[in-house]
């Protein structure tokens, strides 16, 4: 790397105390210049659109004609006069409430299994992580359709036991559950984090406990779980946010409709329909801000309750 020699002039202190602005320029400007590529992206691609979207959420905007200010009408309609809003809210809450705990439990179970020092751990770890990499992809959603269709893999398997299964994916009683199963199957990333957390627990605690005659289950409840709570907390927050944002599987599996009978009409899917199906950008922006607020409230609630159940060993 070419490093230029520093001339003595650069090392000498500033001759005079210059103005404040000049000092800021000399001290901070290079830093901001280095930040510039990120800063431009952050302001232009994140903050800019967010502010615009906040403005649009108070307008009627169909993309073709200029936005028209309607005050809080979008929010009022959402809360008082939009059954689909509540349907999509119910579907999303159901999904979050069932998929997150089940996924975390499954991830923890697999992590415990892998933590017993089996041979070829890196291979297993990679294999179990694979679904997480593929999970949100279009291909997997299409595969899921095939597996859970009326003449799909699941029903062929059930048929061996003489059970004639329904078309899981297109039956309103089961369709959301197939998406929950898909989400649980993508347990890889919380599993990896659990595994790292389990490695942090000192082995001598278990030794001491077993000398005192504690059963495996008791060791799990009294040692593993309490010491793992910071990791559980972290995983729960991340996975909850992910679950609220979940879009691709429902979009692909239902062809963007949220059918059958809106049983898979995720909040994000409804938002997409309003924006790009019916060109109500204003209403869709309002929906997006409500989702942001909701996720914020959930996260804040988790942090507030965390002091009662998360144990940091400090």
């Amino acid at each position: 790397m070419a490093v230029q020699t520093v001339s003595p002039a650069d090392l000498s202190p500033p001759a005079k105390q210059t103005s404040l602005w000049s000092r800021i320029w000399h001290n901070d400007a290079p830093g901001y210049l280095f930040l510039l590529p990120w800063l431009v992206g952050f302001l232009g691609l994140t903050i800019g659109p967010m502010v615009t979207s906040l403005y649009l959420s108070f307008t009627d905007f169909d993309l073709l004609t200029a936005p028209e200010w309607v005050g809080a009408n979008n929010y009022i309609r959402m809360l008082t006069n939009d059954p689909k809003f509540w349907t999509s809210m119910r579907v999303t809450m159901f999904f979050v409430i069932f998929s997150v705990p089940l996924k975390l439990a499954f991830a923890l179970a697999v992590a415990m299994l892998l933590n017993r020092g089996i041979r070829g751990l890196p291979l297993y770890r990679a294999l179990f992580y694979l679904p997480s990499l593929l999970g949100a992809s279009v291909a997997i959603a299409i595969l899921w359709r095939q597996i859970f269709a009326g003449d799909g893999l699941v029903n062929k398997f059930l048929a061996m036991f003489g059970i004639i299964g329904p078309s899981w994916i297109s039956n309103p009683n089961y369709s959301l559950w197939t998406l929950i199963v898909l989400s649980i199957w993508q347990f890889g990333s919380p599993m990896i984090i659990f595994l790292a957390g389990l490695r942090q627990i000192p082995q001598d605690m278990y030794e001491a406990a077993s000398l005192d005659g504690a059963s495996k289950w008791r060791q799990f409840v009294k040692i593993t779980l309490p010491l793992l709570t910071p990791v559980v907390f972290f995983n729960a927050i991340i996975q909850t946010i992910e679950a609220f944002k979940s879009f691709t599987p429902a979009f692909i599996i239902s062809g963007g409709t949220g059918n059958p009978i809106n049983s898979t009409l995720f909040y994000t899917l409804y938002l997409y329909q309003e924006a790009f199906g019916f060109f109500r950008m204003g209403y869709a922006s309002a929906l997006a801000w409500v989702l942001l607020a909701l996720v914020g409230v959930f996260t804040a609630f988790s942090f507030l309750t965390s002091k009662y159940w998360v144990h940091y060993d400090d």
Partner: protein
Amino acid sequence: MTIRVDRRKFLMGSTALAAAGAMGVMPAWAQSEDLRLIFWGGQARADRTNKVTDLFEQAKGGSVQSEFLAWNDYWPKLATQTAGGNAPDVIQMDYRYIVEYAKRNAIAPLDEFVGGALQLADFDQDQLEGGKVDGKLYGISLGANSVAMLMNVTAFEEAGIEPPTNDWTYDDIMTMGEAFKAANVRGGMKLIADGSYNEPMLNNWLRQKGKELYTADGKLAFEEADMVEWFKLWQTMRDAGVCVAPDEQALDTGPLESTMLVSGKAALLPANSNQLVAFQAIMQDKVDMVGHPRIAPGAGGGHYRKPSMFFSVAASSANKERAAEFLNFFISDPEAAKILDVERGIPCLPSTRDVVAPILDEQNLIALNFVSNLGDLLGPLPPPPPAAAGEIDLSLLRVIGQEVGFGARTPEDGAAYFVSEATAILERAA
């Protein structure tokens, strides 16, 4: 370690970067003879279209840049480009959207070019009317098509049942369906897909009763009682096992391969006449088409020759005259006609039809004959649907149809809910 950044060099570099970034989002400097074209469709349509743009470039100079997307992706993209003032010059337009785009001045009236760049003296009158909004011409129809009932002829042969003809009725669905069920072909294939939330099929049925889906001023043009009758009709078929079960039908999410015809769950499927080619291309069995069933022997007028798609010119286009020339070339040039044949529907100029007729393959010939020989099945062109029609179809008819299908609502309840919600949606959009 000190790395010195020469301020002047840095500024020059970042300016260049900023300039490069700006170039990327600016429209290419349009020369007066260059055109941009956007359309929906698959690769097969794109290949044909691009060959014609090449022909146009050779014949008239300039360049035509085209891009194509699938139907679902097309409308968001077009709306976004239009909002950004960056819409392509030539836009493929659908009957469902033309009023909305015309009323918002997103597409330009073409009347000033008629007789000049656009030669439409022999153009089919009903197709010309279809492209008009408030008396002004906003779209040139690229072809006519009609709804049709696609049928798996091979499956009918296996069942030993005579396939329907243009004289068949809704009562025939029941008798034919029972016979089909008794024949038990291919592990219980049903006679017909569930059409209870198929908007064009409902429309066809209503038109035979002398009604429509929508009035010209965008209101519902039928009664709640009609809807009750419609849902009950399909419930009878569903209960008798004549049409496919609701959880099978829900697997149809739009793409051809998910339809009941291609997945082998039904022998009949309501679709469009120009789609026969596409269906036959992905099916082993022989596919043919027939009109939608009549509500009673002798009843007709349900079908209409729909402009399958238009070309419109963006209001923001700097080259409207040139765009009109391209449109004229697209619909009338004999070489272009041979390339395009009837993939976008039956051409609307007699001279173009004459060029195309001798070179058609079997499926296209079936489509051409079907649309040309509708006879008393043919009725007048309905008014263009209101802007909210798409929403009512997608988020209301589909959902309520499924609710009735799965038994979550009775036909009476479903019909009442449909009429009240559809009225609310129409009022909100008006």
